[in-house]
């Protein structure tokens, strides 16, 4: 039987003819990405300095988790990151002001290309699968070892194939598609995931990126998408580097193949503390008047230009409800600038939202919008685990950016259709 996409990439980077599920392989990696979290001075982070790296031209440092530095230890990690980038002659340092969440910067600067292998010390690294690039998070010590020696290891997985058909209904987004997949298929622990089918070509790069990043929350290992026309057009605009796309063998073996009708997707909400096995249609919650304290639009998955656009469409001429705070964090400074030019930031700010600089920020509960005990938050970010966004006594709901924006206006969880004036000609 033939190989799946990620296993073909693993084989080509391990110098092997074929890699099968369960094999442990040692590979070279084309692009190594480190975030500021790698440079904390602590026994479990980077306890002493890196002296040499095998391939400096493959290693990038992208500051994102704590930007601008909210604490002294973060400022120190940034200082160490700059020192390492300069001394070791690394490929790129995306410093404060030219920064963004790493998975967004990888996309904007094509730090991973079709057929390549990319590794980073953050689990949402699967986002680079949009680029037909095999990518997944590895541990921090793993990424340091990889940067130094040029090599790391992977355990190859069997893959699940999702075949997308049709088109997303208006009023739904890639976040709802992810929540639909979680609700219908649940955890894909131990598996890679591939997305195929004519429905994929109806999704733009932003939407694919949301889907690829959120697939980590299906517990997927590698997440792969084909190098179709949408991707090749996108890449033509940002890079002249040569690449060789990967596609699955015609007789590739999958652990399961699932047909997904995009037309069946509706607005969904994940209830507090976990996603898989915990997703309900929005309309089931709407009658319950779940009051919210904080509404957050942001993160690598949903701080896209399309998220800010959706939020601005809901908030135009509206006001964030009294007693509710709406925080909006673009995934990169490039998105911030585009949103500024498009007028979204003006609309959001007029409505009473706080727009922050690009950072992981509130998504990981580090800064820029931590939730307190007993508070209820609705977020379009990546995780709703207990304590994820601050207090372990807070409740976190997850939905699309449009639903988060509508909930901010309503003061309770609800969709754009419940906001007066929206959708009325």
């Amino acid at each position, binding site marked *: 039987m033939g190989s799946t996409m990620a296993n073909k990439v693993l084989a080509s980077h391990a110098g092997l003819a074929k890699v099968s599920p369960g094999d442990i392989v040692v590979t070279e990696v084309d692009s190594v990405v480190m975030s500021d979290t790698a440079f904390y*001075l602590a026994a479990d982070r980077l306890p002493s300095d890196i002296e040499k790296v095998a391939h400096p031209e493959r290693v990038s440092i992208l500051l994102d988790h704590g930007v601008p530095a909210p604490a002294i230890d973060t400022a120190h990690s940034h200082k160490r990151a700059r020192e390492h980038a300069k001394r070791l002659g690394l490929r790129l340092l995306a410093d404060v002001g030219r920064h963004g969440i790493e998975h967004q910067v990888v996309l904007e600067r094509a730090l991973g290309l079709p057929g390549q292998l990319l590794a980073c010390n953050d689990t949402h690294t699967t986002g680079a699968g949009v680029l037909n690039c095999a990518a997944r998070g590895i541990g921090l010590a793993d990424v340091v070892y990889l940067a130094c020696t040029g090599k790391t290891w992977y355990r190859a997985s069997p893959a699940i194939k999702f075949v997308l058909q049709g088109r997303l209904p208006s009023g739904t987004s890639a976040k709802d598609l992810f929540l639909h997949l979680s609700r219908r298929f649940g955890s894909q*622990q131990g598996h890679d995931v591939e997305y195929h089918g004519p429905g994929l070509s109806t999704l733009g790069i932003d939407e694919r990126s949301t889907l690829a990043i959120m697939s980590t929350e299906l517990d997927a290992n590698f997440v792969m998408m084909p190098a179709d026309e949408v991707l090749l057009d996108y890449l033509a605009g940002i890079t002249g580097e040569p690449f060789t796309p990967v596609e699955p063998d015609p007789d590739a073996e999958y652990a399961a193949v699932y047909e997904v009708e995009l037309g069946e997707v509706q607005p969904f909400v994940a209830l507090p503390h976990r996603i898989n096995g915990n997703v309900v249609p929005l309309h089931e919650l709407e009658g319950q008047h779940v009051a919210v304290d904080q509404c957050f639009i942001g993160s690598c998955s949903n701080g896209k230009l399309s998220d800010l656009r959706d939020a601005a469409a809901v908030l135009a001429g509206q006001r964030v409800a009294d007693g509710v705070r709406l925080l909006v964090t673009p995934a990169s400074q490039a998105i911030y600038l585009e949103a500024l030019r498009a007028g979204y930031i003006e609309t959001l700010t007029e409505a009473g939202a706080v727009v922050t600089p690009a950072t992981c920020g509130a998504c990981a509960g580090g800064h820029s919008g931590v939730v307190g005990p007993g508070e209820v938050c609705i977020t379009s970010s990546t995780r709703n685990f207990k304590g994820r966004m601050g207090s372990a006594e807070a409740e976190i709901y997850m939905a699309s950016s449009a639903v988060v924006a509508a909930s901010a206006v309503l003061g309770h969880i609800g969709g754009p259709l419940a906001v007066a004036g929206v959708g009325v000609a």
Partner: protein
Amino acid sequence: MIPDDAVNTDAIMPRAGFSLPREQQRKLVLASLRPGWSEQVQEGDVLVAGNSFGIGSSRPAVTVLQALGLRAIVAESFGEVFLRNSVSYAMPVLECPGVLATVDEGEMVEVDMGAATVRNLTRGCELSGQPLPEMLIDVIKRGGLYAMLREQGYMASVVRA
């Protein structure tokens, strides 16, 4: 024992503890799931865990479990990055389907990484798990990746001023 399924690394190593001294961070380990549990762990204990232990964020959650004195973790299965981190930071880990039915809280167990077995000394029975490849057992034996990088001259033994 933490028999729960899909325990995530935010629960094992909460963000709130990142900058705290080890002693205070210790109190937060799994506190949202099992208040007071971390105080009961003793040096040399073996953690027996459920399915998909350590899913979620790639943070080095295994290191706070090491700091509690745990010397091995045997789980029904592990989150992929948690498993990697365990090898990288030299924590012996064994995937052992059926372990929850073979060991109870407080029983004496012996873990043999080479043979990939868990022996319940209290009951006198043994269970086989999924062996880690020799290459990864070697990383654990050598004290983890940072120890290897220092040995090989890639990493300094001190921090630059």
